[in-house]
């Protein structure tokens, strides 16, 4: 069965009205997951709803308190945005790892979140930066912390008739920085075997006053790991604190064995990545 309709609404209200009457419709942003799934026969929506003509979904708006990134903004635009580059270098690292140049021209944060792959590169970075998903529905808008957005591989808490409009990132306080790394068996164009993002805030003497750690590709969804963050807070992020955080990340992981790597390997590697990115985030925070 081929998809019979293509619509390109110009407003959120128009999009909501369409998806309410057509529950089998699929939201089309960059198409880098949806159209692959369509060609493979995995998804057969009744209609494609191209949301890239809706201004709210396609703009990056910076204000005194943070940045709102439209759910359909492509990775390349996010990576080029001055405020995003300054405040969230780790998020930029993450979006610049998603596929090729061609994919980064189209793939979006909204798509990365809604596709809900446990290995999605942007998700861990969004989680450590306290990002909130702004969801519109016929009853108005609700805000969901990104760590709660995915509920299982390919599943999100979006209800039928709801649309992810934007992702809101609060401006980081002074001496805060993030970092992201993933492990893949080659240098480009692959999907994470394991990944980790860390954000740390330091005081004037270099002591970590708050931290967030998230790990990816090692559980059904990306995980926020408070135990790993607790290991960092109160320390100067020396070897002992980093090792404790690494152990906490490994302990929190619930990986599977698959073609990308055995569970035991993933569990070890996610700890190593946590340690490395915490050190990078700390070095960046000192300069912020």
């Amino acid at each position, binding site marked *: 069965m*081929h998809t019979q309709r293509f619509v390109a609404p110009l407003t959120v209200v128009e999009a909501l009205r369409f998806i309410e009457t057509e529950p089998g419709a699929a939201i089309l942003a960059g*198409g880098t997951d949806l159209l692959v799934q369509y060609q493979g026969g995995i998804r057969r929506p009744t209609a494609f709803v191209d949301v890239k003509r809706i201004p709210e979904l396609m703009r990056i708006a910076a204000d005194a308190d943070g940045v709102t990134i439209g759910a359909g903004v492509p990775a390349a635009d996010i990576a080029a945005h001055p405020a995003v580059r300054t405040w969230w270098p780790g998020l930029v690292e993450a979006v610049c790892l998603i596929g090729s140049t*061609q*994919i980064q021209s*189209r793939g979006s944060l909204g798509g990365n979140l809604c596709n809900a792959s446990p290995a999605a590169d942007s998700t861990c970075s969004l989680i450590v930066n306290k990002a909130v998903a702004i969801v519109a529905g016929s009853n108005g808008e609700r805000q969901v912390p990104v760590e709660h957005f995915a509920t299982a591989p390919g599943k999100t808490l979006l209800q039928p008739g709801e649309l992810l409009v934007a992702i809101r990132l609060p401006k980081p306080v002074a001496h805060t920085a993030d970092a992201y790394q993933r492990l893949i068996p080659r240098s480009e164009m692959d999907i994470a075997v394991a990944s980790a993002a860390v954000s740390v805030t330091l005081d004037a003497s270099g002591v970590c006053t708050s931290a967030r750690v998230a790990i990816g590709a090692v559980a059904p969804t990306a995980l926020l790991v408070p135990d790993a963050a607790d290991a960092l807070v109160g320390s100067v992020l020396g070897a002992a604190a980093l090792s404790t955080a690494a152990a906490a990340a490994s302990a929190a992981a619930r990986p599977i064995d698959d073609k990308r790597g055995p569970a035991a390997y993933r569990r070890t590697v996610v700890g190593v990545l946590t340690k490395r990115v915490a050190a990078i985030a700390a070095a960046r925070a000192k300069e912020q």
Partner: protein
Amino acid sequence: MSKLHIETLVNGEPVEFLCAPDETLLSALRNGLGLTGTKEGCGTGDCGACSVIMNDRLVASCLVLAAEAQGASVTTVEGIAQGEALHPLQQAFLDEAALQCGICTPGFIVASKALLDMHPDPSEQQVRYWLAGNLCRCTGYDKIVRAVLGAAAKMRSAQA
């Protein structure tokens, strides 16, 4: 299934075509408009053979619906040369023998053009990362990278 009527700019020329709601831009270019320079490799966005520039961005046309091109500006490999005069990238690919079978070449030319439009003086590393989404099973890439760097240098000296 009702067809959609799409108006767009392809290689600077206004064009109109009819497409199915699920037809890819790649299919519309090749089958609808007869622009067969753009190749289909994998059909899943992994190989880059179908690369075109849409609204100043390099995209895989197999992962774009034709209907999305309404009002857009699309550049295919057919729009790279100026009449009979080859683009410096095309000449450099010939001079460096940066191809064998040739099926990946249109994608590489278009992708390299998008790179040089944005970064006229790329490093070798920048070229290699930018072209990571274009696969070539013949050349081993070295000649392609050399051709892109050589064309970039020629274009810079022509500008100077």
